[in-house]
C-alpha cells in the first residue's frame, strides 16, 4: 500500500505492507532510529511518538493507520540547533542514563509540559507511568522534567490550556490496596 505520512513536518511517501508497524516504518523505512523499540508487547513505552499531537506507543499502531496523519518523533524535538528545554533538562539532571527509554520519555514530557506548564512530581510520574526505565530508576527523569518546567520548557508549544491537564494531583481514588 502506498502511504504518505508527515513526520516532523516533512512528507514521506512509501510502499508498505499493511502489517508493518509504525515503529518499524520510522526506523527501517525512514531511518529515524531515535524512536526505540523494546518489549513488543505494548508495555514498555520506549517506542512512544506523537500521532496527531498525542503520544502513543508506535509498536501498537500500523504504519497504514498513520497514512495522511502527522507523526512527531524525538528527531523533531529540537528547534534547529537549539535543544528543547526537555532535552536540556535530561542533560542537566542526568535523566539520560543508558538512553534507551530516553526518546519516549522526552516525547511524553514535552506533551505533558505543553498541557501542564507546572507539573508536580506526581503529575510527571503519572504521565510516564506507561514507560519503563531499566536503568537506575525514575528519579533523574522526574528531575529532568521539573528542570525543563523551571527553565522555560513549560511555556507550552502546543495549544496549552485548551485541553485538560493529563496529570492531576489528587491521589488515584480507584486504586486500592488490600491484604488478605
Amino acid at each position, binding site marked *: *500500500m502506498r502511504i504518505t505520512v508527515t513526520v516532523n513536518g516533512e512528507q514521506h511517501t512509501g510502499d508498505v*505492507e*499493511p*502489517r508493518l*508497524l509504525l515503529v518499524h516504518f520510522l526506523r527501517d523505512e525512514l531511518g529515524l532510529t531515535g524512536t526505540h523499540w523494546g518489549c*513488543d*508487547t*505494548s*508495555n514498555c*513505552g520506549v517506542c*512512544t511518538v506523537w*500521532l496527531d499531537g*498525542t*503520544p*502513543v*506507543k508506535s509498536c*501498537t*499502531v*500500523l504504519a*497504514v*493507520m498513520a*497514512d495522511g496523519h502527522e507523526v512527531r518523533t524525538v528527531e523533531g524535538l529540537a528547534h534547529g540547533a537549539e535543544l528543547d528545554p526537555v532535552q536540556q533538562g535530561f542533560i542537566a539532571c542526568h535523566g539520560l542514563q543508558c538512553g534507551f527509554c530516553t526518546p519516549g520519555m522526552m516525547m*511524553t514530557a514535552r506533551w505533558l509540559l505543553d498541557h501542564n506548564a507546572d507539573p508536580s512530581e506526581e503529575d510527571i510520574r*503519572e*504521565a510516564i*507511568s*506507561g*514507560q519503563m526505565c531499566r536503568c537506575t530508576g525514575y528519579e533523574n527523569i522526574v528531575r529532568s522534567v521539573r528542570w525543563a518546567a523551571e527553565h522555560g520548557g513549560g511555556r507550552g508549544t502546543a495549544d496549552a490550556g485548551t*485541553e*485538560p491537564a*493529563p496529570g492531576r494531583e489528587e491521589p*488515584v*481514588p*480507584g*486504586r*486500592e*490496596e*488490600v491484604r*488478605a
Partner: protein
Amino acid sequence: MQVPAAFQYERATSLEQAIELLARYGPEARVVAGGHSLLPMMKLRLAQPEALIDINDLSELALIRVDGHDLAAGAMVRHADLLASPVVGEHFPILRDAERVIADPLVRNRGTVGGSLCQADPSEDLSAAFSALRATLVAQGPGGRRTIAIREFFLGPYETALNEAELLVEIRVPIRSHASAYRKVERRVGDWAVVAAGAVLEISGGVITEAGIGLTAVGAPRFVSEQAEDFLRGGRPDDEAFAEAGRIAAQECRPTADQRGPVDYKRHLAGELTTRALRAAAARAQGQEA
C-alpha cells in the same frame, strides 16, 4: 520481533461503508479501533484476521454527548476522552474511577471504549463498570440499528452478542440520581485487574431503590453479582448491608487461579472491593468525596 500475519487493510470513511466492507470480506474480517487489544493478539498470532477495516476516520463515533436523559458515548471515544469528560465526571464517577486505572496514559490515548467492550476480555474494567450502570449498547449492521442491554451483550470470554458485519456504535447510560464508585487491585500501575469492583446505588428516602454491582477478572456471570444487587435492593445503605453484599458477591463469582493469584485471594478481594466500592458510593451520595 513480533509481526502479524499478512492481511488486507481497508479504511472506512463512513459507518455504512464499514458495514459494507465487513459484509464483503466475511467472517474473517475484523474492525480495528484503537488496535490496542487486536494488534497485540495479531502479533502473537492469537488472532489472524484476513482483513482489517479501520474505523478511526468515523469521527461521528468519537463523540460524548448528552442526548435527552442519556449520556451517549460513541464507540470510538478514546479512554483518555472519557476520563477527561466533565459530563462523565459529574454524573458517572464510576467511569472516571475506572478510566484512571485502565492501562496507562499512552494506551488510554489510543484505546477506545467500544473496543474495550467488544473485546469482551474477562478482565476488562469498562465491561464491569458499564454493566453495573446497566448501560444500553447500540449496534448497527446490514439490517439496521438495534439496542442490546449490556447484560445480554457478553456471551462468554471474547464473545459478544454482535452479529457478523455488525458494529457497536454507541453506549448509552441514563443520567439519573445515583452514586457510584470503582475500586481495583492490580499488581502494578497500568496492569490488568487482579480483581476490581464497581458499585452503583440509587437511594430514596434512606432506602436503596436500585443497586448495580460490577465485578471483573473473577468470573462473575456477565460481569455482575445479581445476588448482591437483589440483597441490597429495598434495604438501608449502611456498613452492615455493604459487608453482607460483599460476602454474597464473593460467593457468586467464580475466580480461577493464575499468575495474578490463587482462588481464595481473588474471592477475598471480590468481597472486600465490593464492600469498599459500596461504601465509597454511599459516601459520595452524602456529598463526601471518597
